[in-house]
């Protein structure tokens, strides 16, 4: 229950990446509650709970379609419905802290061993296979991304490397316990390609997918899911066979399951957001957005020096009397 709940809550984090710095907190909370119940739960049941996609033979070891493609489809629709940040496409909006990004990528990689190896639901050989694959695929994705960066611009960036790690993790997720380690390396490297170019393409559009959820999780998840059915190897997993292992039909089944998830998640997200928008505004005004939602909505700043902060005394002088506090006037005199 707690393990499955972790899969559900990661989708909320993923979708938030497409609407950060603009969607109102209350509307986001309402959306995510409705979305988990109306979209995540049924999709998880279709693929993992013996629903119709499981019956058709769709393979998803640890959430390629259920978590990543599902959340990315919602993120795409949410980014369009909520609209871009006020300065998007007019002024450069730069990453806030590259060391934090790398720290986050490291934490994600570590946590992902739990997601993928844990999906074996036991300390089994399949868990060991998923664990090793979760190490190898992002490594290959990082290497491929680095080479692409070198070839395209001649420079390699740390922020790009963090994205590459996430793309590799997403790509191996549906395949973790189904493919051999050699295939995991190939899958990670191949999985990096579509996301790399999707990200460049996104930057040329008006789509303000702030943290590239669609490029990393949607494109990466779909590529990984298709490649799962190319590389799945019964000799390693004792389970299903993929195209290379003599079962080319499996790829078509997987493509069908991805289309179903994409379409349902996108359509349902649109309906949920439009319904919420009738009751709650999805955004603040331009000025509050410029000030920043930390101050405007949460009354808290991440990096305040405290200059000019006036202490507001709590109501009721009981505490002050008990502590014998003397009010201090100007110049420090009582």
């Amino acid at each position, binding site marked *: 229950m707690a393990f499955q709940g972790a899969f559900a809550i990661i989708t909320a984090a993923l979708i938030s990446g497409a609407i950060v710095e603009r969607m109102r907190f209350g509307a986001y909370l309402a959306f995510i509650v409705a979305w988990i119940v109306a979209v995540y739960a049924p999709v998880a049941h279709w693929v993992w709970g013996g629903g119709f996609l499981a019956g058709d033979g769709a393979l998803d070891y640890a959430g390629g379609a259920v978590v990543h493609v599902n959340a990315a489809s919602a993120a795409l629709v949410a980014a369009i419905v909520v609209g871009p940040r006020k300065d998007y496409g007019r002024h450069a909006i730069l990453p806030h802290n590259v060391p934090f990004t790398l720290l986050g990528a490291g934490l994600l990689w570590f946590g992902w061993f739990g997601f993928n190896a844990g999906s074996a639901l036991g300390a089994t050989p399949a868990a060991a296979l998923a664990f090793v694959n979760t190490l190898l695929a992002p490594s290959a994705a990082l290497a491929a991304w680095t080479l692409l960066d070198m070839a395209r611009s001649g420079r390699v960036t740390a922020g790009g490397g963090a994205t590459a790690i996430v793309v590799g993790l997403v790509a191996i997720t549906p395949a973790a316990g189904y493919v051999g380690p050699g295939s995991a390396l190939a899958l990670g490297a191949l999985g990096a390609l579509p996301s790399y170019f999707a990200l460049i393409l996104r930057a040329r559009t008006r789509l303000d997918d702030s943290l590239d959820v669609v490029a990393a999780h949607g494109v990466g998840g779909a590529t990984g899911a298709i490649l799962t059915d190319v590389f799945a190897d019964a000799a390693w997993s004792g389970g299903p066979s993929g195209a290379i292992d003599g079962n080319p039909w499996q790829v078509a089944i997987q493509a069908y399951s991805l289309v179903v998830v994409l379409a349902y998640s996108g359509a349902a997200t649109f309906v949920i957001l439009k319904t919420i928008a009738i009751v709650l505004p999805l955004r603040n005004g331009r000025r509050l957005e410029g*000030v920043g939602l930390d*101050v405007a909505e949460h009354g*808290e*700043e991440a990096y*305040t020096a405290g200059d*000019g902060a*006036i*202490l507001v005394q709590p109501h009721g002088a009981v505490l002050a009397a008990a502590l014998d506090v003397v009010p201090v006037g100007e110049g420090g005199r009582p």
Partner: protein
Amino acid sequence: MRLIVAIIRPEQLSDVLEALFHAEVRGLTISRVLGHGGETEHVENYRGTTVKMALSEKVRLEIGVSNHFVQPTVDAIMAAARTGEQDQDAVTPVVGTRT
């Protein structure tokens, strides 16, 4: 030659720079400062402590221009720095001094 000093809200900086660029004003210096422009103070909370932020971040622009450029520069700043919300608009003084 005149020195124009303007203190604006940081969230308007991009708009002001864009307006100055369109007004063909080249060469300026900005600094990040703290100030109070008579606006409503916002309230923040930190672990049970409630504070009112009397000073907020501002951006100070210093632009040296020739005399015939003073009016276009001031107009550009005034137009772009206005937020359109009355109470919040007090913070756009523009000063010209002879140098």
